[in-house]
């Protein structure tokens, strides 16, 4: 009863002056019930994102990147999925929000670009209709206004002759054009949060660069917060402000893009950096892919999930790596039992020479 008269609003989530981040994911767990058991696809993940900022999420295949972001949009099948933790978008709690609430936000305040635009767009409707639909739904625009908006969006993402291409079906577009159309679709309601799940993986390198530039330009125009999911640290280097490195459903390292690329701390991040082919690298330095394969999320390893593939467990000593789960500090840091000095020394002495 006192809340009505309570003068203290400084801690209220929606306070624009407050310093609560625009998107805040806290202790997120996503579990799938499957025939073989429970898949712990996301295991205690936290990160923040501000408006106008780009967060890169990197990790091997199966590390839980897509699952995390589908959880933000509330797109998991509630029948077999358990989600706990906190997802606050602009102060609004999204975990456990009703379908109605989520439907109002999806495509409107938060939108997603999917990896494979050929399967992600419906083959049965024209590109224009698919772009216009969310605009009509969220803004109440008429069919004609929505069509005009679809043409405008197609022009914005650089589709030639948008007035005629608007009536094409996805299969009549090239791969690069389809991905642009997908971006147009995601941005049609000017979302405040844009999630791009490997938006360029299916494209060739030049188109890849164009699409990333396009995203950057659009972000500068509208101040959208972007989560960019990728395998490719090269993509991160050019577009992200900060990075979360994911392994087996957990964040194992966090920092600015510069920090992650120049002074990575986690052995897994070293491995990711080591597996990028470089044009400048001399031929006699072999690529160093991470040995082994990602662990089963049905039965993740005890302690540090990376210990089964890590070359430095002996440096930590004892069986600490396999028994004790390392914590990821808030802000810059990594979830690893190596000491800060050890991390720095190993990186400078053993890892860096191989990267040059």
């Amino acid at each position: 009863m006192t809340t009505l008269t309570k003068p203290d609003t400084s801690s209220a989530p929606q306070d624009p002056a407050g310093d609560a981040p625009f998107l805040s994911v806290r202790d997120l767990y996503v579990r799938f019930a499957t025939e073989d058991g429970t898949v712990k696809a996301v295991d205690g993940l936290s990160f923040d994102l501000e408006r106008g900022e780009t967060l890169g999420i990197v990790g091997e295949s199966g590390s839980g990147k897509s699952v995390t972001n589908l959880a933000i949009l509330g797109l998991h099948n509630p029948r077999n999925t358990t989600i706990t933790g906190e997802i606050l978008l602009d102060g609004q709690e999204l975990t456990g929000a009703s379908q109605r609430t989520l439907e109002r936000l999806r495509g409107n305040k938060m939108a997603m670009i999917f990896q494979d635009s050929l399967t992600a767009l419906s083959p049965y409707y024209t590109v224009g209709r698919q772009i216009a639909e969310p605009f009509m739904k969220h803004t109440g625009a008429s069919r004609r206004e929505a069509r005009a908006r679809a043409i405008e969006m197609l022009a914005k993402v650089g589709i030639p002759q948008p007035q005629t291409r608007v009536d094409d079906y996805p299969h009549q577009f090239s791969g690069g054009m389809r991905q642009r159309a997908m971006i147009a679709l995601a941005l049609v309601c000017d979302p405040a949060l844009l999630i791009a799940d490997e938006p360029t993986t299916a494209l060739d390198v030049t188109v890849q660069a164009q699409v990333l530039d396009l995203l950057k330009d659009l972000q500068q125009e509208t101040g959208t917060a972007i989560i960019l999911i990728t395998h490719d640290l090269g993509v991160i280097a050019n577009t992200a402000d900060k990075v979360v490195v994911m392994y087996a459903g957990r964040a194992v390292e966090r920092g600015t893009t510069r920090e992650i690329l120049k002074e990575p701390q986690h052995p897994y991040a070293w491995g990711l950096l080591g597996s990028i082919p470089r044009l400048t690298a001399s031929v006699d330095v072999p690529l160093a892919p991470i040995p082994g394969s990602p662990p089963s999320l049905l039965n993740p390893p005890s302690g540090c999930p990376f210990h089964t593939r890590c070359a430095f467990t002996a440096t930590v000593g004892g069986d600490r790596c396999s028994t004790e789960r390392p914590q990821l500090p808030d802000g810059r840091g990594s979830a690893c039992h190596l000491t800060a000095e050890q991390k720095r020394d190993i990186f400078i002495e053993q890892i860096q020479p191989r990267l040059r």
Partner: protein
Amino acid sequence: MLRFLVRRVLGAAVILVLISFVTYLLFFALPSDPALLSCGKNCNPQNLALIHKNLGLDKPIPVQWWNYVVGIFAGRHLPLGNCPAPCFGLSFNNDTSVWSLLKDRYPTTLSLAIGGSVTFLVIGVGLGLISAWKQGSVFDRVASSISLLGQSVQIYFIGPLAIYLFSVQLGWLDRGHDPDWTSDPVGSLTGLVLPCLIMSVIFWSNYSRQTRSLMVEQLSEEHVRTARAKGMGSKYVFFRYALRGAMGPIVTIFGIDLGSVFGGAIITEATFGLHGLGNLAVSAVLQSDLPLEMGVMLVGATSIVFFNILIDACYAFIDPRIRLA
């Protein structure tokens, strides 16, 4: 779309020409002399030769077949009487034109085939959709067990039971009679309800299972997820996106079933004592009435080919990737 249709119609024409030729061979050339059949008891060589000439059997077979096909479109003057187009010859039995017999019986079979199809599509697809919408619910489980039941019954077994129960005992439904759409459309419709329902039973279980699994599959498709990611409501996504994707395969399955649909219609006719093509074919076979058998064959084959084109057109209409190819 037009090119697609033209291609399909031309293909169908070729198929029909082949079918007509093969059936002609089967009926008039390969078996025992057809003239013998219409010659009767006091048959002598002179009579036989006369009949040969009358039936045109003295000419080479391709010529006979050609005359037959031309007759279908242009009519023929046969020695036994005039046979206006479409001429399928005259019945051996009483010299009436085969076409007039076909014209009499075809509406019953066609009404059953169409009515039965509409019934099982509505019930089968409808149940499948509800099951997919409420996956794992009691309804879903009950519907799938009923489906199993539906697949193990026979029309000629449940038909009489249904007549006894619904029309004799309860008096709810007409026991089924031949439709006459021009003079009594309402009566035609009510007369078809029970036969169509019974005929649909052997089909709809398959459609409800297929629809359910197609919808479940579609609902996990990426383009359906995109529609949800746009904020579209779950009903909208279900019908506009998932069902749209499931429709093509359902239509394809229906196309494969066309033959069985006509077969089912013929069994249903027999079960309900209706007078359709099946009944006509049986009497033609019993009386060795070759022109009539041939006529029934051709009309049946043409119907199936025609409905196949219709279904292909539906498919192309549903899927722009085919329409615009």
